[in-house]
């Protein structure tokens, strides 16, 4: 079974006019790095709060009303339903506006959209999760999901890197995964830094060093495009087949539902057909524009 075999399973589908955002309240803001915040939010509508479900890997369209809409994955796990979380780097108009909001402020949410990580396919396998920078956000949802259903998976290897120690996101999670004896956690930063005792080196190089076994394993890679491009060959060297490698792609999106046109790679619309793809799929895209 490959990802493409997994059809859109039964899941929460937005009803009615999919362009209308649901109002949600920011309950808590966590400062991840100077540029990244995680927002914990919940729908105002009690019924929706109850009914809303999603799967790891799906994304939403978040609006700051009057400013605009932006696309981020849901970085919390569907197994933890207290609230939804998204992790946002400050890069443009909407993200700047989001960062200016305080706890208690209201945002708009549309979603969930897109496909998700193929949990059925991963079940019973060893998971190798490779992430860089804010690319840990979608994987974090998957990691907690896997940890909450720990028995369903084999070993779990996490390789996570950032530019500097200060750029590491989810430090509180990293700590708890490090303590977790069922997780093999490796953290790295790009360059030597004062007070940094851990690994130094780029993620692909560290992956090569850690050398997770490809046997009965799935590798999930997420991070800046350059990191992804260099990590795939390393994994291939370690024996991973293209079908065993999974990533999630990022594109400029507006509608989230395959209509507005900009997120295509060939005839694939990342918002509708993705964002989760196997390397095998990507390799066969007619376009190199991923």
């Amino acid at each position, binding site marked *: 079974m490959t990802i493409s075999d997994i059809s859109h399973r039964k899941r929460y589908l937005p009803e009615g006019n999919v362009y209308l955002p649901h*109002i949600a309240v920011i309950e808590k803001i966590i400062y991840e790095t100077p540029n990244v915040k995680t927002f914990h939010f919940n729908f105002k509508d009690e019924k929706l709060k109850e009914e809303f479900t999603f799967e790891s890997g799906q994304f939403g369209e978040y609006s700051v*009303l009057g400013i605009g809409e932006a696309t981020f994955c849901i970085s919390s796990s569907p197994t933890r339903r207290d609230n939804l979380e998204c992790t946002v780097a400050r890069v443009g108009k909407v993200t700047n506006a989001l960062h200016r909001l305080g706890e208690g402020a209201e945002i708009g949410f549309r979603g969930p959209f897109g496909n998700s990580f193929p949990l059925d396919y991963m079940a019973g396998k060893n998971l190798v999760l490779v992430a860089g920078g804010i690319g840990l956000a979608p994987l974090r949802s998957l990691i907690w999901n896997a940890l909450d259903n720990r028995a369903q998976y084999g070993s779990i290897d996490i390789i996570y890197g950032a530019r500097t120690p200060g750029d590491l996101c989810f430090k509180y999670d990293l700590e708890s995964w490090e303590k977790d004896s069922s997780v093999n956690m490796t953290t790295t930063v790009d360059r030597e830094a004062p007070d940094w005792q851990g690994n130094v080196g780029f993620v692909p190089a560290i992956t090569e060093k850690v050398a997770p076994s490809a046997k009965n394993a799935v590798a999930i890679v997420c991070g*800046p495009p350059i990191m992804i491009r260099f990590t795939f060959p390393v994994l291939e060297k370690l024996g991973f087949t293209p079908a065993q490698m999974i990533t999630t792609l990022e*594109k400029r999106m507006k509608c989230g539902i*395959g209509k507005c046109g*900009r997120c295509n790679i*060939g005839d694939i619309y990342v918002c509708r057909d993705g964002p989760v793809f196997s390397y095998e799929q990507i390799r066969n895209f007619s376009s190199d524009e991923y």
Partner: protein
Amino acid sequence: MLEKWQKEFAVFVPSKASGVSQMEVWDGQDTAFLDRNRNTAVPPKAKFLPGMEKMFGFRKEEGSYVVEPTDGEPPKQLLFGIHPCDARAIGIIDMVFKDAYDDKYYLSRRENTVLVGMACTSPYDSCFCTSLGFGPADATDVDIMLIDIGDALLIEEVTEKGRGILAGAKGVIEATEKDEKEAAAARESANAKVSRKIDTAEISRRLPLVFNDREFWEEVSAKCVSCGICTFLCPTCYCFDINDEMLQDGSGARYRNWDCCSFAIYTRMPAENPREEKWRRVRQKVYHKYLFYPELFNVIACTGCGRCIRQCPVNWDITQTLSKLPAGSPGKAEEKQKAS
């Protein structure tokens, strides 16, 4: 007849009153469009997917946001004198807006619209509809179709909706065999007037082979100036952008407006832009219409209306590009396929 329809619908006809030829509300008098029936500069898609459309409003009530959907059904409208190419185009973009998730805005306008087609008797020299599987006088995706047969208009009923608007109309008489013959002749002569041709079968064969032929795409895109004219005026281009507007009191609205793959900013992300270079954007435009869209919906997203050729500031001619596609040179795509 138009007057009758006016009671029930907002009737739009081709008009130049605003300074540019487009579909405008009929003033009840002008019938110039019957005599001189050339296609409008702005395609009728603007009546389903307006250049700017309000999606919803919002306001703050006791410190909390309230989303106010744009309420009610859009007004019933009747578009008179739609050319077959533009009607076909509407049929083509219907597919996107129905796909996976319904696009309520587009579809509700679409449902409330009657399309009265008018056979095109004087195609432009830039038209090439006959290469795309229909002629300038064929009834494609319209509700009723009119063909000028000299002293009268021959009416073809095409859909249930079309039959509905004809019911009880005065002055409509059964067409004679002679009329039918004249209509057929008119159709033939219209077909003959379309001189520009492309070979869609050959194009579909070649396109997958030349995707990575960067040299070719750089060459054909060199003179493109990356404006939005061809896409904004294209009857099958449907891409849009979503933008918010806010008033001082904290209320506001979300709109969508046309967007265009020729703009570098269209796909620009903070870290990188997959189509920063002009040749990639030109390639995307050609491929979307002639390869990606057919792969998804089994139809070429081009109806040969020729607007992009007529209106292009530098006469960038898609038919020339398509006919220049290198023939089966084993590009990287093929190698790549072989390799995998």
